[in-house]
């Protein structure tokens, strides 16, 4: 059975192109364009991995979503790749996570900065959940 990736971003062009790439490489995909929708979809059916945009302008940003997921016993193991538009976002998120819950706590497995190279994205997904 194909592995499933949930793509969460409020930029429809980014979501659709990423979907095309992942489907082209044998993954199944679902999408959400805000944090609340993402959380709803994760609870409906847990994906194998989540690509999560950090900065969504409405209804819950990526930090909020990742913390919610990590706080749920049956969801907390889902790997998350957090997508940022600028590097400072990742620094800010790391700082936030460290301040909130101590050094060991990191709700996100990997940070990737836009623009994302297709090969690098596939590699990271492969590392976290194995090939499609």
């Amino acid at each position, binding site marked *: 059975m194909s592995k499933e990736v949930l793509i969460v971003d*409020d*930029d*429809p*062009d*980014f979501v659709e*192109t*990423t979907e*095309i*790439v992942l489907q*082209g490489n044998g993954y199944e995909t679902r999408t959400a364009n805000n944090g609340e929708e993402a959380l709803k979809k994760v609870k409906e059916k847990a994906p194998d991995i989540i690509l999560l945009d950090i*900065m969504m*302008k*409405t209804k819950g940003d990526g930090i909020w979503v990742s913390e919610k997921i990590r706080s749920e016993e049956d969801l907390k193991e889902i790997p998350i790749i957090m997508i940022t*538009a*600028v590097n*400072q976002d990742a620094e800010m998120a790391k700082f936030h996570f460290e301040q909130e819950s101590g050094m060991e706590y990191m709700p996100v497995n990997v940070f990737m900065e*836009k*623009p*994302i*190279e*297709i090969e690098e994205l596939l590699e990271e997904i492969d590392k976290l959940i194995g090939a499609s």
Partner: protein
Amino acid sequence: METESCKIKDFKCHKKRIQGWHNKFESSISSLIETLKDLKDSSIEAKKECSEHYARTVELTKAKTRFTFEVSHELKAPLASVYNIINVILDGYLDGDIKKQKEFLDRARVRIKNITKLLDDLLMLSHLEERTKELEKEEFNIGEVFSSLIEEMNEYAEKSNVKINWNLSENCPHIYGNSELIRRVFANIIHNAIKYSNPRGLVEVTGKKENGSFLLRVKDRGIGIKKKELPKIFNIFFRGENARPNQKKEGMGLGLSLVKRIVDAHEGYINIKSQLHKGTTAEVSFPESQKKEK
């Protein structure tokens, strides 16, 4: 000399002299105390001014950093999407689907156009903030800006399936200002009204002289703005929650934040009233030129 005027045993004379010195000494001391008090007051004042200045500088620096950060975001996110589109096509993911390739390239074109517009607006913004006094201004009849604007807006309205009613007074006043920027203000407001109207909606544009100003009122019955979002509409990069589904459309510049700055640079006035799902009314006015009308 006073010493010579007192005989050695004339104690009264000596006492008087000493009293004189004492009085002089006391008045010097009190004037010295006054000076010190003044110094203390002015040093307190200076310290207060200094700390106020420091707080303002810190605030400005923070605002500037935040602004740079937001600009980077607004530019990098769409650029990343354009980069994705190009990669998807070049890497062959859409081979054999020319229609889809064209659709994505068209989206990339719109995004690039929007980025360019955003950059133009940013340059304009910095120009307005740094050099408001150097803004090229001249006296012109405000009616002049409408001739080309009506054509442009009618075309956009037709494309968007929206009707515009123009109700412009023939007796338009003269304004002292930058006609290109004022045209831009009007264009932006009318463009927004069309863009956020529902299909087959109506936009009413009224322009007239009122209380020594030229007042433009643009009323639509479109999607409106949430009450809690109204105070933020002039903030840079702000877009209402219900306005976002339109983000694929052209025209994502700095919008109203730039409009507000242009209006301020002309000592004008702008007011926006709105009700969610019922529509928005924007009023903008520019003061009539003080010189006699030609």
